[in-house]
């Protein structure tokens, strides 16, 4: 499917869409005017697509420097009357949370949807936090679609609900919903709010001043809070009869109930059907504000209830509350009584195992006898972890840092490597072993401040260009101002690489593909007053080693900007690949053991370069003591 179908597709069209693609269509159907994000898996594709279609869809779109800025761009658009949309991964909401929580107080005029993609099982994140907690924290409605069709429909409904209640609405997905593909039937496209003016391809709104409603100072905040709780109470009443919450009867007059939502519902449904269980399922879609009436009506005549939900036992506690408040005597099985696991995403096998613990209806231990030769292969499978790409400049920087430490006679055990969020976190693995501590986006610089102050060890921080703009600048100011002594490395590969190649403020292009001012990392670093600021080409190993050796002698904060474009950027010229001269190769395996480059492997005792993969970075030839790598011209 071509992405312009998301803009031009008509009501009734059916497409096989990713959850994230369906989210884009939903926002367009709802009459979206403004969207802003910072990329984060599993929500990244939404921004990539909007970036591509923004002008055709008459939408303003930006990749903001971080999620908090995106939240502010969208909140002010919504309060000016426009329908506005931000989306992020679960931990992105932590960054945005300061403004996010208060948007519920100040409210909106145009609809505002905040899509947050959770990552149970941590496919590409640092934790498994459950965004449903944020709905409770901020007192904000939360919708949980379970498949791409519902993602589209709930984004549309989220905008309606938001505009009706004049507060933002959260749409919570999980990796298995955002990255699920399914059949989606399109609906009509609503006109945008606001008006069209010359020189803008999107509609603009108008902000009507009302400081009592919009300025949360002590004199106003309690009133704002009260208005919010009244809105939520109103929605809570309405939620007991909303058709988006459904009772699905697997068997008539079933005495076992299941309460579920999101991707977990899919597993519960499939197991109940496949195993022909005597069950009915309450599928919650508007899962906050919780309707205790709805839960009570569903459970009151049951023999037992299972709560099937991923990550935290949030719904389970609310079901237990309902049981308690009404003096019912119905067992509730979920995570708290250990029927289901507390961590990781579910699947049908896990849900079946949970049901079976209580109902004891089947043998869940399926085993297959395999021959010893196959067992042996399975037991000794080489791992295939993600690795830095062939020609990636991070590999060169990492090698250069370690070489500089060796030449400066500094033991690595006395150096703390504070890292950050990006491809370079792969430096955790052997042979690099150059990630010792990591908290969040931008944390490498703040962590560097702490380690430099609190220990007698040296500190070298690593942060990517996009992450530096996201939240590395303010801790760098902190480091200089508080007279810390450590090295900050900005791994400037000229793109936001890990999430698929989005632009960032260091590039001369914005989120809609237009020309944009390029912000200089070097000038930012100089402006903080850092005492040593250098830009290096990490693919020049000698320059890299010499620069780090000098920085190790510097007192104060040193900033080294290792600038070299990511090999995945389209249009970056590949340099000619290398080959091995077997007359010179000493079979020392130094290249294999120090670089772990995917283009270099050892096949039947010989070092072999896969020339289709080699990007010609030449680091292997720079480190080889026998000059065995030769450039193919």
């Amino acid at each position: 499917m071509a992405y312009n179908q998301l803009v031009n597709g008509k009501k009734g069209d059916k497409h096989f869409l990713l959850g994230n693609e369906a989210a884009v269509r939903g926002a367009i159907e709802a009459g979206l005017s403004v969207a802003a994000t910072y990329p984060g898996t599993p929500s990244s594709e939404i921004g990539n697509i909007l970036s591509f279609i923004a002008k055709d869809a008459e939408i303003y779109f930006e990749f903001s420097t971080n999620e908090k800025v995106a939240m502010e761009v969208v909140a002010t658009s919504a309060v000016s009357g426009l329908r506005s949309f931000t989306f992020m991964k679960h931990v992105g909401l932590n960054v945005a949370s300061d403004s996010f929580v208060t948007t519920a107080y100040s409210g909106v005029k145009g609809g505002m949807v905040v899509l947050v993609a959770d990552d149970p099982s941590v496919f590409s994140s640092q934790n498994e936090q459950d965004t449903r907690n944020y709905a409770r924290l901020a007192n904000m409605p939360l919708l949980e679609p379970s498949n791409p069709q519902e993602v589209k429909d709930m984004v549309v409904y989220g905008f309606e609900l938001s505009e009706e209640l004049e507060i933002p609405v959260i749409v919570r997905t999980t990796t298995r919903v955002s990255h699920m593909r399914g059949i989606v039937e399109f609906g009509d496209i609503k006109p945008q709010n606001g008006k069209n003016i010359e020189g803008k391809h999107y509609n603009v709104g108008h902000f009507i001043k009302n400081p009592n409603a919009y300025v949360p100072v002590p004199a106003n905040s309690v009133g704002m809070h009260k208005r919010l709780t009244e809105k939520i109470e109103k929605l809570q009443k309405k939620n007991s009869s909303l058709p988006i919450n459904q009772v699905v009867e697997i068997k008539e007059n079933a005495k076992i109930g299941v309460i579920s939502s999101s991707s977990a519902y899919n597993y519960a449904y499939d197991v109940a059907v496949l195993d022909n269980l005597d069950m009915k399922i309450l599928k919650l879609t508007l899962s906050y504000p919780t309707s205790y009436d709805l839960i009570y009506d569903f459970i009151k005549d049951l023999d037992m209830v299972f709560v099937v939900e991923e990550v935290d036992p949030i719904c389970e506690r609310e079901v237990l509350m309902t049981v308690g408040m009404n003096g019912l005597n119905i067992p509730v099985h979920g995570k708290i009584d250990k029927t289901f696991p507390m961590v990781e995403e579910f699947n049908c096998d896990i849900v079946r195992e949970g049901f079976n613990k209580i109902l004891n209806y089947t043998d869940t231990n399926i085993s297959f006898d395999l021959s010893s030769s196959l067992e042996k292969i399975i037991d000794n499978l080489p791992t295939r972890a993600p690795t830095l790409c062939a020609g990636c400049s991070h590999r060169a920087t990492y090698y250069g840092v370690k070489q500089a430490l060796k030449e400066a006679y500094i033991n690595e055990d006395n150096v703390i490597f504070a890292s950050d969020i990006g491809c370079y976190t792969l430096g955790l693995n052997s042979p690099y072993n150059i990630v010792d501590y990591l908290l969040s986006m931008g944390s490498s610089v703040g962590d560097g401040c702490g380690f430099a102050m609190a220990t007698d060890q040296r500190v070298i921080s690593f942060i990517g260009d996009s992450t530096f703009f996201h939240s590395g600048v303010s801790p760098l100011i902190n480091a200089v101002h508080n007279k810390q002594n450590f090295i900050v490395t900005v791994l400037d590969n000229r793109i936001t690489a890990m999430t698929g190649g989005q632009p960032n403020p260091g590039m001369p292009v914005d989120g809609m593909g237009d020309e944009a001012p390029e912000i200089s990392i070097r000038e930012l670093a100089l402006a903080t007053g850092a005492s040593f600021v250098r830009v290096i080409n990490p693919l020049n190993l000698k320059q890299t080693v010499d620069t780090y050796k000098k920085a190790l002698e510097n007192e104060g904060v040193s900033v080294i900007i290792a600038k070299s474009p990511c090999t995945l950027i389209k249009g970056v010229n590949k340099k000619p690949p290398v080959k091995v001269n077997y007359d010179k190769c000493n079979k020392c395996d130094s290249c294999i053991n120090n670089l772990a480059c995917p283009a270099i492997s050892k096949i039947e005792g010989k070092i072999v370069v896969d020339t289709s993969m080699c990007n010609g970075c030449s680091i292997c030839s720079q480190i080889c003591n026998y000059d065995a790598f030769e450039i193919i011209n």
Partner: protein
Amino acid sequence: MVKDNYSIYICGVGGQGIIKTSTIIGEAGMDEGLNVVMSEIHGMSQRGGSVSTEIKIGEYKSSIIEDHTSNMILGFEPLEVVRGLSKANKDTSLVFNTYPIVPAQITGTNSYPNVDSIVSSLKDNYNKVYPVEGSKYAEEAGNILSLNMVLLGSAVAVNSFPIEKENIIKAMKNNLNEKFHKMNLKAFEYGYNAIK
């Protein structure tokens, strides 16, 4: 109710065109009037790690294949087929490319097993094993990048495959760059004929 089901586990290494192939199968299924759900994992996929997608055709809601229930494993790389065997039972069709992609190795890690021994031990344990010289056919068709279409052809050629060949070809045209249709069709036919 869950009936007329068919599930396909597709596995390989990032960058081999696995998601594109899976989308073509899913879209063709949709065009045939079947319900299709599919699971993909994005993110690190371009960084040389193991990649898999799961396709379930039939009245399913969940897109993750239960252990030992996959009707087909379509492997783009022999080692990754072995890694995916928890989805297989004795009657699962194992269709796979025999050309290995050796992961970056450093001293002390497990070495890559011999491909012939992988194929023969799979044949000893499973009833429907279809090794395909996929990379060779792809190069013959014009470019190694057409490997995914070779393997798609092989998958479609397996008797139990639930979607008509012409619907797959239609979805291919809808999802692939027009410039390479001729090469991709050639690759598809090579793969198809390797099994039929």
